[in-house]
């Protein structure tokens, strides 16, 4: 009996003096494979009767801020690079009484130059760029490159010619997005070629845009085309004009232009969203010859339905090479074809391995 009492007494003393707290510990470790470098793994040792663990981290000012309250004994979190950070864990029971506390060693993370997990992308990038550069060099050395005919591209000149014959304008919409979209840039390159045609045929060109930067670069492009065709007198800054950044307000404005000016040729070339069908249907209703082109898979169906010709996906990006016959662009098209062939072979090999339940090849293409 006395021994039992002594046991209880020792237990109470040990708890009150913090000896029982020694079980709890927290370890913070930097995940070195992350490119951002600021990911850390937190591991805890469990405490009996703990229902949750409150994790806090130290700020530069010395304050503690809450990170998470969890039951997990291991989890990831992020900290700011180049700042010494400590983590504190507080074990809580069901009544939220503090059972124990522990503080980790200070750790510091730093941004990495190289993420080994993305090595496959790096190699692919080097290979693809190398192949394309090789074919560009070949094209520059006057090696002849064949390009198969694409119906939509052959219709460009026909559409501008038709507008000229009818005495009506040519409407060109380079999408609704800004210059940070590849489709917009591609649309502006095509605009340059269309502007050359309108300059040659002396047709009116109308380019409504929905972004100020696109307006500026559109003006530069059109002006350069008119100068290169020897008709700077026909160029006017008002050819490229801004309406609004708002998607549907822009669509309403373009519809208004179509209904009032009744252009004979409408080019919808760029990045489009839900307004694509509204514009294409209006162009269709006024009887204009419409040539659309976009890389947005969700909008192609609307253009296919309502336009006379549609440049689908890569055809749209290849358009500038077709229209311009620049060896650099032609070479890049050939290079991309070779890359596609290599990728198809890779897919074939991967399928074979997967069919025989061998996964190493597929894992080479894993993302992170």
């Amino acid at each position, binding site marked *: 009996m006395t021994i039992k009492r002594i046991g209880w007494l020792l237990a109470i003393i040990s708890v009150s003096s913090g000896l029982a707290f020694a079980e709890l510990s927290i370890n913070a470790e930097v995940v070195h494979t992350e490119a951002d470098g600021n990911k850390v793994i937190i591991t805890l040792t469990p405490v009996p009767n703990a229902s949750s663990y409150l994790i806090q981290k130290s700020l530069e000012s010395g304050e503690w801020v809450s990170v998470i309250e969890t039951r997990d004994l291991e989890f990831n979190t992020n900290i700011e690079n180049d700042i010494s950070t400590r983590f504190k864990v507080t074990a809580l029971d069901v009544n939220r009484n503090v059972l124990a506390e522990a503080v980790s060693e200070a750790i510091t993370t730093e941004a990495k130059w190289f993420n080994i997990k993305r090595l*496959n*992308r790096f190699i*692919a*990038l080097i290979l693809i760029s190398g192949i394309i550069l090789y074919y560009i060099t070949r094209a520059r050395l006057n090696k002849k*490159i*064949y*390009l*198969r005919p*694409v119906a939509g591209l052959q219709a460009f000149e026909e559409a501008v010619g038709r507008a000229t014959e009818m005495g009506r304008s040519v409407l060109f919409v380079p999408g609704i997005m*800004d*210059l*940070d979209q*590849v489709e917009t*840039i591609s649309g502006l390159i095509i605009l340059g070629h269309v502007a050359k045609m309108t300059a040659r045929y002396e047709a009116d060109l109308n380019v409504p845009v929905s972004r100020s*930067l696109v307006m*500026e*670069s559109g003006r*530069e492009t059109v002006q350069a085309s008119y100068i290169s065709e020897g008709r700077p007198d026909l160029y006017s800054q008002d050819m490229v004009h801004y*309406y*609004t*950044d*708002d998607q549907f*307000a*822009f669509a*309403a*404005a373009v*519809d*208004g232009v179509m*209904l009032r000016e009744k252009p004979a040729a409408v080019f919808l070339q760029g990045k489009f969203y*839900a307004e694509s*069908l509204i514009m294409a249907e209006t162009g269709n209703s006024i009887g204009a010859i419409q040539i659309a082109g976009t890389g947005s*898979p*969700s909008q192609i*169906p*609307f253009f*296919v*339905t309502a336009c006379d010709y549609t440049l*689908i*996906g*890569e*055809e749209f990006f*290849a358009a500038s090479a077709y229209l311009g016959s620049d060896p650099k662009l032609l070479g890049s098209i*050939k290079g991309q*074809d070779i890359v*596609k*062939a290599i990728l*198809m072979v*890779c*897919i074939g090999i*991967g*399928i074979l*391995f*997967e*069919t025989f*339940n061998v996964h190493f*090849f*597929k894992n080479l*293409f*894993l*993302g992170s």
Partner: protein
Amino acid sequence: MYIGILGAWVAVFLTLSILSYLYKDNVFYKLSEHIFVGVSAAHWATIAFWNQVQPNLFGRLWPQAEVAALEGFNKFWYGIYHVLHVLFEKVFPEETINGVLYRGIGDQPQNLSYLIAFILGVFMLFRLIPKIGWLSRWSLAYVIGMAAGLRLYGYMSSDVIGQIHATMLPLWTGNLGESINNIILIVGVLTGLFYFFFSVEHKGALKIVSRIGIYFLMVYFGASFGFAVMGRISLLIGRFNDLIEYSGKQYGFATPILLLIMVAVLILSGRKEKKNKEAEA
């Protein structure tokens, strides 16, 4: 209450005006189109300035700081801010909290590298001065170059590597349905990819492969089109629900009254137009 009723009348008028485009281009459509374009252009310009330029550019160059604690370069730097405050008080605010004077915007950490963005932005405005307008090309070059570089990795990762990984599927999985699905997917990807070969003439067997590819694409386009049409119809139903709601007594019968007025005006203007045409003929 009155504001709610007025709002309902404006909403009904603008909705019916836009829908009147289904009849033909008319004065109501023109009016609503011009209101829409004008209001949205102003709205976007305001949003861009107060949500982007002021907090994200000026806020990073001059985050809020206690004037008395400023020293060295920052003392001079916040002196410039004070001059700007005198010129444009709303954009560059100063405030006194508990008797302490603070200058700056927001609580983001100071980052003077944003001066580069600021200078490039100012270059764009040089378009207004023809002699130095060429400087704006630097800003455009930066935007295009930056976008191309940033997008390159994204496209490589999702459209190339990710797609290849997702297409490497076993031809036989032990489950007939799943295996057929895999085969359809593989044939669709390979033939679809082949359709986009530009430097090879599509004739003979290659033409058949390319044709199969375009059939797969068309099936996708058809499904996507149907899906989008369903979405558009639900949007239309939403507008009709509003029009029905606003046709009640509590909104002063906004929908039927405005509809009747607009129809009457359109009929009258149509007759007038017809008469004018006849007179011209």
